[in-house]
């Protein structure tokens, strides 16, 4: 345990000593605010048009929908935490310091995961505040509201989602060992494959693709917005289970490659 703690400390120091980490976080923040306000504006306009009594838009709800875009800025951060080691050859120095390879992978996941959780909660909070600030005005019908409990649960949900997607990315990065390969695989898992499947229109395939990480995350976060237009066919709890499963499989794959291959 002590060795793991030290290795996490080392990975933590590495994470914050490169500019790319700060850039990715800044991108995530800007992207989150812009995408959330845009999606929130669309939702508010829609609510205004429907005009039914009791219609309301929770300010954090468009922020949850924006996760489909924001996730890529954070995926980039998680990816660089591992693939930059292969680009520079630094992985050989890392493995000299920590020759138990599973420990290196665990430490990276455990250093990146909490950062992503915090990034999800904090950028989400800023974006929620921005949505509320911009869209709660009368011009948008005053439908945008800020109920504390719902917002808090959305923010925590996003934090968990980003943390798990990042852990999955670290696993894929260890397996693919290159930035280009990792980005391709993670993009296909998150968005590429589900979109292609939606285009085929095959109900069985669509049903299956709804278990892929991004939709599992949307289900977990309780988003009504999924690209199929219909409600999610399973509960938030099952969404979390699928997310955990994807992260676990990716980390297991990364571990196998890291252990088997020469560094």
């Amino acid at each position: 345990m002590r060795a793991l703690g030290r290795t996490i400390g080392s990975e933590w120091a590495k994470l914050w000593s490169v500019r790319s980490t700060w850039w990715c976080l800044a991108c995530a923040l800007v992207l989150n605010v812009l995408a959330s306000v845009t999606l929130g504006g669309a939702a508010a306009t829609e609510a205004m048009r429907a005009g039914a009594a009791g219609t309301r838009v929770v300010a954090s709800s468009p922020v949850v929908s924006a996760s489909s875009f924001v996730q890529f800025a954070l995926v980039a951060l998680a990816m660089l935490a591992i693939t930059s080691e292969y680009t520079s050859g630094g992985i050989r120095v890392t493995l000299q310091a920590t020759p138990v390879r599973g420990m290196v992978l665990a430490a990276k996941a455990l250093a990146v995961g909490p950062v992503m959780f915090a990034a999800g909660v904090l950028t989400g909070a800023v974006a929620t505040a921005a949505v509320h600030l911009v869209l709660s005005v009368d011009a948008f019908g005053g439908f945008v509201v800020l109920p504390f409990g719902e917002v808090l649960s959305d923010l925590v949900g996003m934090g968990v989602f980003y943390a798990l997607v990042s852990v999955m990315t670290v696993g894929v990065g260890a397996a693919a060992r290159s930035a280009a390969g990792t980005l391709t695989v993670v993009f296909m898992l998150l968005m590429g494959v589900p979109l292609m499947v939606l285009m085929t229109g095959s109900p069985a395939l669509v049903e299956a693709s709804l278990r892929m990480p991004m939709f599992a995350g949307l289900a977990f976060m309780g988003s009504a917005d999924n690209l199929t237009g219909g409600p999610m066919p399973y509960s938030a709890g099952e969404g979390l289970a699928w997310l955990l499963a994807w992260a676990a499989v990716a980390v297991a794959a990364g571990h196998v490659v890291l252990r088997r291959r020469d560094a």
Partner: protein
Amino acid sequence: MISLKNLGKRYGDRLAVDDLTLELKPGTVTGFLGPNGAGKSTTMRLILGLDRPTSGTALIGGLPYHRIGNPLRTVGALLDARAVHPGRSGRAHLTALARSNGIPQRRVGEVLETVGMAAAARKRAGTLSLGMSQRLGIAAALLGDPAVLMFDEPVNGLDPDGVRWVRGLMRSLAAEGRTVFVSSHLMSEMQLTADHLVVIGKGRLIMDAPLADVLAGSSLTAVLVRSPHAGDLADRLRAAGIRVDRLGENEIEATGASIERVGDLAHEAGIRLHELRTREASLEQAYQELTSGSVEYGANA
């Protein structure tokens, strides 16, 4: 301290390291020589557990590398000076390494001071010259104050002052009782630095001997004789089975015999000598001779 037993590594159908058995002792600088592609770097990676051997074992103090707790405190190694994230400062790089092995933070400042790059410690690694990168790599190797040190081509890119500094550093590390294993292709440098030599070619051990023995054993080490009766002496030496070359009117060169033997034969024949001395082969020459059969990428000039 480092012991290799029947160590082998195969990449596809190419044997990079072939049945290598070695013992490296504390308190000595062991020079690791061989042509490009001979397997020097691979051997070092195998010792550090970065590559998995296809056969045999590499142990450090009786343990495989991955079984050593906080290994940077036992083994310090510089394999590739450029293997640092280009955006990370030298100090941050060392700080992360120190944390991973529970090495106190003050060591970072100490080793930066030792390698003479305290002033450049906050520069991003990608902006350092090759020489400065080498110093940073050496600092990383020294960080855990380890008993075993391995350096792959440490003087690459260093200026003459830097080269002299590295030589002194290696000597002093060995004098402190550490095991120092250093590869180089600069023979003149090794001749000044190493006590012991390990030469490999095409992954196989060619020689494992003290530097002095390697030099003495070379056929290029010769006895030079100047005598007014050089011709007569040449005949006597040839009759005794010694190879003799005539260098001039009064000068001959005998190879394959000790200086004592040549002197004795001259004395027995009553031949006056004006000069009798050995001409030692340089390590460069001895090395050429040893590896002439095993150059991986030799040019057919």
